[in-house]
Each structure stands twice: as C-alpha cells, then as structure tokens.
C-alpha cells in the first residue's frame, strides 16, 4: 500500500513538472553575442527561393562540451536578377554565421576566423547537415544552396576548409535539406541531399494573378535527390543512379533516417512538397527501393497528396519502432505515419491529436524531443505560411505564426505554451541541450528576423524529472554512431543529427526518465553489435563506447 502511494506521489510529481504548471516551458531570449538576421530578401517578383531558407545547426565544433550554433543565410536578391547569379554573399550581411558558445552562456561570432565567411556569390543559402565524415572526432559541415553546396571539413583547430571540389559533393541545382548517415554500415558517413525542383532564376515566375504569390511546386518540374557514398579517403562518389535513389523524381524538402523495419540498414524518408512522400527502403546491398505507397507512408489516410516540408523519424509512442512525422501546409494535417511493424505504417494524425493542432498552420522544422523529461517525446514545429501575403487571399491563414509546442500524453499531443509571444515566419529548427542542464532547448530561424532561442525552463522551475544524455562513440561503426538504435527505459531513439527542415540537431541522444533514477541502456550499433548497460545513473552525460566485438 505504502509503495503504491509513493508511486502515485512520484507520478504526481512528474505530472507537475514544468509543462503542466501553466507557465511557458521555455524562456525565449537571444543569447548575448548572437546578432544573426536571416536575409531572405523578399522581392515583388516572388522568386521562390526567397521564402524557403534557412537552416540552423547545433554542434560542438571545437569539442569543448558546449553546443555552438551555425546559421545558414539566404542572400541578396535584386531586380532584375544579375547574370550570372549573384546573391551578394561576399557582403557580411549575407554570410552564414558560426557562433561559438562561451562558458558563461554567451556566444562569439567566429565565422571569419573559422573560414566560413563567404559562401560564394552564386549561392543562395538553404540548409546545413552535420556529421563527422572522416571520423576524426570533429563534426564537419555540409551547407546546401540554390547553386553549389559546400562541404566544410573541420580541421580540429577551430577552422574549417572548403573541401567540396576534392570531395566531389557540390551538387547543383536547388538543394535543400541534407543529412549524413551510413547506409552501407561501412563505418563511414554517407551523404543524402534533397533537391526541391527544377527552378532557376532565369525561369522564375510569380503566380496568384493579381495577388502575386510564390508559385506552387507543381509549376516546376520534379528533380532527383542525390546520394553520395563516402569512399573513406576524403572523397565521395555520386551513387544516386546505381543505388536507385535517382529512379524517383520528386520535390523534396526534408529528409530523415531510421531503420524502420529492423533489418539493420538505415532507411530514408523524403518529405516531398505537393506530391506523395518517399520512403526509400535500404535493400542492404547498396540499393534502395521506394516503397512509400505500399508501406502506407506516402499519402494522407484519404489518399491525398501532402505538402511535405519538414520530417522527423523517431518513435513517438514508445513502442520501439521509429514513426514518421511530416509538417505540411494548412488544410492538411501534419502527417503522423505510425510504424505498425512488418514494414507497414498507418496514418494516425487524428488519433495523435494533430487535427486540432495543425490543420490551420504551415509547418517547417520539426522535432520530437522530451521537453518535460517525462519519458514521452514532445513535439515542436516552426510555423509560418509560404506566402507572405496569404492573409489577402485567405484571412484565416497567416504568414507569421507562433511555433507549435505540443506535449505528448501517451501518444496524444496537446498544445502547450512555448513562451514565444510574437508570431514569426518560422523555418528551420534544431534541438539540443545548449546549457547542458539536461533539458532540451530549441533554436528556430525566422525569415527576415533574428533566430528564436528557446531555453528549456524545466530545471529552473523545479522540474523533478530525471534525464540522461548519451553520446555514442563508435569504433567499428561510424564514430558518432549515426544509425544506432538506443533504448532507455522503454524509450527508443535513432542516433542522427538529421531531420527537421534544413537543419541539424545535437548529435547527443537525450532521454527524459521521469521519476526513474537509474536506467537500462541498450544500444544496437550499425555494426550489429548489441550493448547493454544496467543501473545507469540518471542526470548525467554519458558516453557509450562501442565494444570492439560482440560479447558472447
């Protein structure tokens, strides 16, 4: 009886953790030293690229234990557009920016000294991927653009070198989200790059008649995505054709990775705009088969196409299988493709509560993170319509929106106060523990504005829930263990920095433990090695090193 009572009290304590206090979960502030403005340069000509940036990455580029922030900038657009393309990226206003976090929580702009200043005048910036492609222990950056993409190798001394030409990963056309993952489990991170459509400044146009709006995606031809295989010598090979990725043209905006069918090979979900979504099943032999329709992860439950933008590929209902959540435009509902097992998904947006939460909003960056540390991953979505004049067309829709924060109650989401009070044109969003207090924070970009940095108040407001943050250290697998399945007290995460929209999140894996003071940690590494750690103490940053070989 006594133990049942104390258990009840513990549950009450967990329930009384920050999200349910009625106050905002986050404190929203621009940390000292961050002065970035996302320059998208909107024009009356409505060039489509200007409503699509920009990405943000949370990474510890100098391995000092503190997350740093990298922002991708758009560029300057003039009328008429110059030939050849010139987006004025030499001008510091249009630089991408790297902010190093200092020990006191302030940030210092280290863009120039890090060698990340001018991304090239012919490139209009979009997104960023983070991964240690050469396993040297320092995270590298891949920046996507309309124009040429850039791979920046982290030299480990606070500087980066543009190695795009040598690596052979320049892409071309209009690249959007990208992500590092190891599709062939060879211990080296490969690279997937989404491309939006066959659009260029010479064939730009506006739509909407007298309203003059950005054109819908159907106005431009679909294109293929790119898969680069890491050769292990600092170069990559474009395997888009032979892997089967290029067999499907799309209008891709988001990408996320997870092994949805448990066959040991990481699969790819691509969020396409205005058409069916793509689920590329990894056949385990270097090829992929697109199975979205057959798997039930391509359309809405009514068989309607979706305006897929951002995507997250994680387990929201703690059944151990990675689910897919896709952000969309209004009059659609953010897609929840529940992984039913057996390679099959079912569309569960309404059951998850997203009909109420999302049918009037436009979603971009998305994250499933346990913000209240109760053991259930919550939802954050950066929001804001594509059209900057949408109110003139439909007053019920809004260009500027508050982000969506929704707390997960046993697989059903309910709206909560994010703490942001002024609506913005939200786009990219990245997730991580900026101040290492065990409570997940958020950084969100907004068009034409400053980034929103949301510091999780959980610890400060008396949240009693426990947590565990895990860093993977691969030995046989890729160094950061991307693709590993990590289970902690019945929760599952797939190690990745990819997902969301245009953005890259903290590679560390965060788990809320609720009342539990210890945890059982189980890791299935991409190498196939299974590892279990028992009685792991809560409230710590734990590095889990991959065993050299499987224990018998």
């Amino acid at each position: 009886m006594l133990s049942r009572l104390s258990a009840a009290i513990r549950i009450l304590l967990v329930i009384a953790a920050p999200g349910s206090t009625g106050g905002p979960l986050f404190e929203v502030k621009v940390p000292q030293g961050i002065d970035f403005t996302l320059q998208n340069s909107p024009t009356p000509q409505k060039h489509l690229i200007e409503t699509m940036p920009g990405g943000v990455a949370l990474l510890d580029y100098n391995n000092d234990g503190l997350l740093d922030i990298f922002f991708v900038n758009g560029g300057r657009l003039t009328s008429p557009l110059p030939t050849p393309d010139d987006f004025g990226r030499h001008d510091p206003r249009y630089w991408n920016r790297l902010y190093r976090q200092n020990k006191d929580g302030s940030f210092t702009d280290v863009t120039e000294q890090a060698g990340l200043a001018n991304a090239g005048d012919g490139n209009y910036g979009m997104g960023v991927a983070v991964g240690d492609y050469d396993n040297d222990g320092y995270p590298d950056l891949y920046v996507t653009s309309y124009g040429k993409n850039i791979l920046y190798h982290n030299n480990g001394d606070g500087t980066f070198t543009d190695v795009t030409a040598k690596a052979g990963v320049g892409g071309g056309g209009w690249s959007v989200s990208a992500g590092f993952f190891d599709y062939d489990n060879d211990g080296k991170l490969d690279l997937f790059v989404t491309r939006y459509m066959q659009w260029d400044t010479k064939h730009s146009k506006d739509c909407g008649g007298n309203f003059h709006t950005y054109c819908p995606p159907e106005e431009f031809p679909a294109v293929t995505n790119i898969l680069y295989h890491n050769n292990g010598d600092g170069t990559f090979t474009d395997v888009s054709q032979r892997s089967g990725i290029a067999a499907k043209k799309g209008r891709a905006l988001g990408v996320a990775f997870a092994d949805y069918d448990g066959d040991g090979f990481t699969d790819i979900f691509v969020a396409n705009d205005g058409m069916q979504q793509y689920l590329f099943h990894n056949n385990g032999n270097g090829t992929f088969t697109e199975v979205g329709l057959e798997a039930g992860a391509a359309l809405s439950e009514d068989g309607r196409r979706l305006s897929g933008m951002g995507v997250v590929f994680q387990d929201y209902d703690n059944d151990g299988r990675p689910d897919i959540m896709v952000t969309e435009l209004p009059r659609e509902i953010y897609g929840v493709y529940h992984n039913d097992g057996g390679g099959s998904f079912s569309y569960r947006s309404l059951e998850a509560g997203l009909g109420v939460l999302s049918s009037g909003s436009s979603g971009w960056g998305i994250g499933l993170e346990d913000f209240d540390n109760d053991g259930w991953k919550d939802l954050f979505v950066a929001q804001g319509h594509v059209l900057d004049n949408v109110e003139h067309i439909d007053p019920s829709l809004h260009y500027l929106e508050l982000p969506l924060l929704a707390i997960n109650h046993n697989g059903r989401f309910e709206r909560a106060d994010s703490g942001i009070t002024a609506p913005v044109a939200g786009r990219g969003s990245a997730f991580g523990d900026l101040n290492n207090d065990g409570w997940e924070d958020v950084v969100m970009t907004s068009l034409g504005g400053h980034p929103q940095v949301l510091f999780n108040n959980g610890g400060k407001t008396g949240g009693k829930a426990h947590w565990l943050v895990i860093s993977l250290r691969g030995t046989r697998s890729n160094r950061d263990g991307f693709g590993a399945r990590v289970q902690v007290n019945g929760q599952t995460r797939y190690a990745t920095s990819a997902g969301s929209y245009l953005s890259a999140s903290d590679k560390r894996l965060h788990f809320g433990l609720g009342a539990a003071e210890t945890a059982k940690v189980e890791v299935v590494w991409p190498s196939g090695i299974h590892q279990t750690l028992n009685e792991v103490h809560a409230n710590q940053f734990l590095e889990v090193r991959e065993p050299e070989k499987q224990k018998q």
Partner: protein
Amino acid sequence: MIMIRAQLLLLLSLAAHTLSPEAAQHMQAGITADKQRQFDIAIAEFQKVTELDPAFEDGFTSLGQAYMEKRDFAAAIAPLKHALEVNPDSAPAHQLLGYALLVQGFAAEAIPHLARAQDKTALGIAQIQTGQLPEAVANLQAALAAHPNDPDILYYLGRASGLLSKQSIDTLLASYPDSPRAHQAMGENYFVLRQMPEAEKEYRDALRLRPDLPEVHLELGEVYAGAFQWAKAEEEFRAQAKLQPGNAEAVYRLGAALLEQGKVHDARAELSRANKLMPDMPETLYSLGKAASLDGDAVAAEKEWTKLLSIEKDSPLAAQAHFGLAGLYRKQGKIAAAQHEMQEFQRLQGGSNPPPAPGKEESPH
C-alpha cells in the same frame, strides 16, 4: 429566318398588296443583297421600297433588320417603329424593335415589344435590367424549359435569381436591420466573402436575439470549421443537431468535427445517426468507414467503404475508399487484396498525382 419570311411576304404582297413593280424590284434586290451580307446595298434598296410604298410594313421591317444586321441598332429603331405604325400587330417588328431597344439600353421601352413577341428570353433579360426580378425569373424559367441547358439562359436565370435574393435581403436589412434574420443574412454575406470574424459576429448576434433560429448554428459551425477551430465547430453543430434532431447535415457535420479532433467513438455514433437520417450518402459512408478504421474496427470500415463503392464507382470518394481498403487489407496481411485496391485507387487517379487536400485546390501553394 425573318428574311425568308420577308421573301414569302413579298410574294404574298405582290399578289395581295398593290406593290408597284419598281418597289417590288427594289425589295427583291434588297433581299438578295441581305442574303449576300451586303448590308449597305440592302439598306439602300429597302430604303427605296419604303420611299416608294410607305404603307408596305415589310419594307420598314426589312430595313430595320438590315440595320441590325449591320449592328447599327440606333438606326434600326425608326423604321421598326414605322412598321408598327403601319401594322401594330407585326410580331417580327415587335421582336426586332424589342431587341434594338434592349441592345441600346432602353430595357423599359423594349419590354412591351418583347412581351408582344412572346420572346421570353429577351423579355427576362430586359426585366433584369428594369428590376422586375420575379417576372424575369419566371420568364427565364419558361425559356429554359423550352431550351434546356442553354448557357445564356442559365446564366441570366442565375443572375436574376441572385439579384432577387439580394433584393429580398436588402429589403430585410433596410426594414429590420437589427432582426435575427438580418444578422443571419449579414453573416452569410461575410461568410461568402471569407470575412470570418465578421461572419462570426453576425451569427452570434443572430443567436443572441433568437437562440433557436434555424440553420444559424450550422452556419456558425461552418465558420469555425473553416478556421480549423474544431472544438467550437463541434459545439455549434451539436447545438444545431439538438435543435433539429432530424437534420442529417448537422449530424454529419458534427460527426466530421468530432473525427477531426480524433474523438473517434463519438464521431462514429454521430455519423451512424446521420446515416440513419439520410441513408447511404457517400460522404457519410466514407467518414463512417474512416472513423471505424481509426477505431480499429476493420470489419465495419470494410463494410462502409464497400457499400460506398457499390454506390459510387469512379468518384474521388470511391478512390479514397479504395485507398482506405488497401491500407486495411495491408494491415491484415491480405497482400493481393491490398494491391488490387491500390491499383483501383491509382486507376481512378488516372496514374497521376493524387489530389490535394480539400480546400487546397484554389489556394496557391
């Protein structure tokens, strides 16, 4: 047609009327020129006929018609009026004069002539212009009965009906501006204009004055549904369904609002009720299947969607039902059946991109 008649009349006139040979010659020359679309020559010849024989009605009628064919409607009016002075019962002259006056914007003057000619289409159009809307609607309905699906008549009938409706509403608003019905009408106007806050206010005012006003809860619910405020929409649809338990639409919309909120059990109950009130509406059957599927009741979902497919084979709802069945069978491991349903779905999509979400068709992006 009228020219053929003129030719016949010429023959009769030559026999009955003492038309001089010279006038008859000019008359024949005018008819020939008119046939050859040489309107200036025809006009000159008919002019000579009227000068040679001012009592010959058809000379004036033919002259008026030639002017009209030349699209000189103003010049046509005088000879047509003269024709009617000679023969006040000439239906062709009345019809042509009515047309000429109507084209010139003299609708009120045209109406008696069109009425005499019994040209209900032109008469209805003229009556729209003079504001005789009930009469216009009646005449255009009669014209449509004689010429079903004529696009011009359909257009003018729609316009006349719309204006008549507006006229009634304007009278209501002018005479009883603070009445519940006036607020309801204003709400409907704002709803059409997609000015939802204003529509909401007007509907609220209507309900404040008369809480049981028919249809207002339903319309207000639609405002909320359009703004994705499903809880409020549910409240209004529920109120409507309570006021009118036999209103199948209200009950269906209540079920749909519940479904949007993921309240699957309640949605099923209401949708079943709607299906009893108005059995086998495809929309209801589809939603019933969807709610059952979400509720984990695969048997019921299959039953509803199969029923829908027995009613509709090729509609967008049929495609959705096939898609739903494909998912259902896939989960049950009935791979062949799932593939068949998916093929049917894709066939109905015409092998093209599936449709966008409802309401997205018109909005860019």
